[in-house]
């Protein structure tokens, strides 16, 4: 197993907070896998993201016990260099604009300038990423004049262009309309195909079911379940813990309870059609 990030017995409290936001967390993130992070609001998902990226404790201060290792090195020992390894995208598209660039092209190029990449290479890489994220038509617009969905794609492009191995994406679509959501997920899908390690926090559970390999479930600062998505998302006991599960998984379990000989609980629509059809055939045979 190739662990790219490891959390060893991590407990963290925000400054002034009375209860820890993350408690006794042990988790290994494997290289090249897609992790979906779910749980109710305030369960520690965003804190988890900031922790992996090293913003905790450097920026958020507070008290951290245990260690977070990225490729075997503690996040606190990295300094600014971590931006080359981990890309970070979050909810608010508006605050993910650097505030110093006048065109989308320059905005996307900003990180590469900071990295000291030669100008000819910047041009090539930025154009490539703008095509991948479908924003080349916006290249000469002012980033602040864009819609939320467009801004979020620019934010993703600005991070992808740095070619990090790991991407942490924290609720990228919670402030977007369905169209914006779709365009953002098209990019996430392309990243998955590139075998990037992805950690995605997302409330739209059907999207997690479709894209993730593994699912981590948080509740009140603790990781209460982790494992293969098929197994986690079909575990109805998690519903009582406040986690959302795909409608098709709930449907599958109910059908099973009612006596339909369903072999596996589906978590995506595609699976549901397949598994239920199978089960119906099975029943008809009898």
């Amino acid at each position, binding site marked *: 197993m190739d662990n790219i990030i490891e959390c060893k017995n991590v407990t963290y409290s*925000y*400054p*002034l*907070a009375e209860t820890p936001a993350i408690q006794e967390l042990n988790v290994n993130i494997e290289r090249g896998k897609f992790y979906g992070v779910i749980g109710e609001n305030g369960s520690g998902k965003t804190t988890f993201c900031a922790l992996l990226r090293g913003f905790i404790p450097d*920026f*958020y*201060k507070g008290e951290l016990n245990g260690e977070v290792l990225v490729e075997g090195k503690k996040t606190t020992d990295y300094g600014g260099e971590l931006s080359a390894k981990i890309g970070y995208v979050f909810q608010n598209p508006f605050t993910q604009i650097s*505030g110093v660039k006048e065109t989308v092209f320059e905005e996307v190029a900003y990180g590469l300038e900071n990295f000291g990449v030669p100008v000819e290479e910047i041009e090539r890489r930025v154009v490539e990423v703008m095509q991948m994220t479908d924003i080349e038509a916006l290249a000469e617009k002012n980033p602040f004049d864009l819609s939320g969905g467009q801004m979020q794609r620019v934010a993703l492009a600005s991070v992808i262009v740095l070619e990090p191995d790991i991407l942490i994406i924290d609720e990228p679509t919670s402030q977007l309309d369905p169209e914006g959501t779709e365009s953002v997920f098209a990019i996430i899908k392309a990243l998955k195909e590139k075998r990037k390690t992805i950690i995605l926090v997302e409330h739209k559970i059907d999207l997690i079911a479709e894209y993730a390999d593994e699912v981590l479930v948080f509740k009140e600062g603790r990781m209460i379940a982790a494992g293969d998505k098929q197994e986690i998302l079909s575990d109805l006991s998690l519903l009582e813990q406040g986690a959302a599960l795909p409608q098709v998984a709930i449907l599958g379990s109910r059908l099973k309870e009612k006596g339909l000989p369903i072999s596996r609980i589906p978590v995506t629509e595609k699976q549901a059609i397949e598994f239920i059809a199978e089960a119906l055939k099975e029943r008809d045979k009898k």
Partner: protein
Amino acid sequence: MEKKKYSIKEDFSMLAILVIPVGVAVNFVGGQLASLLKLPMYLDTIGTIFAAMLCGPWVGAVTGGLTNIVTGIANPVNFAFIPVNVLAGLVTGFLARKQMFSVWWKWILSMLIMAAVSIVSSAPIVVLVYGGVTGGGTSIITAAAMAAGANIWAAFFGTEGIFTVLDRVISFVICWLVIKVIPERTLVKFGCGSNYIKEKKK
């Protein structure tokens, strides 16, 4: 926490670097709003006071100075008042650091100090560089007082004085209202932010 040796460089954290542009823009918008509402005050140091209260005197000073540099690009006459705003930031920052906004009598004292510093630092510039008139709202009153035979210095202090104190009080109250609603978790990240948390807890 232990008391570390203080360095100015630490004042300029990432957050402070981002608060400076906000402060300058607030100065700008405040001034615009004041003239839009036809208030007899400038109200163009709110951002400087705000930055100084949260991030200390040096960040406040930079915010103040930069405000006049930026507005000076459109009207270079503003360059002459750079020292006034730099001082406003410095004084507010030092008062904040010394917890001079915590009790009502300290607060009143601070308001008077801030107004006095502003008048004393701008008076020589207005009188010596511009001969007592800057073209702003209160200039007309100053000019009228001068015409009536009042001494040029007295004319300046009399009219500017009252409005400057009022200006500082309004500016401060706005900053205070904002600081009161900033979440504590955010507040602690600012150099002087923890000062305001302790007071809330009391």
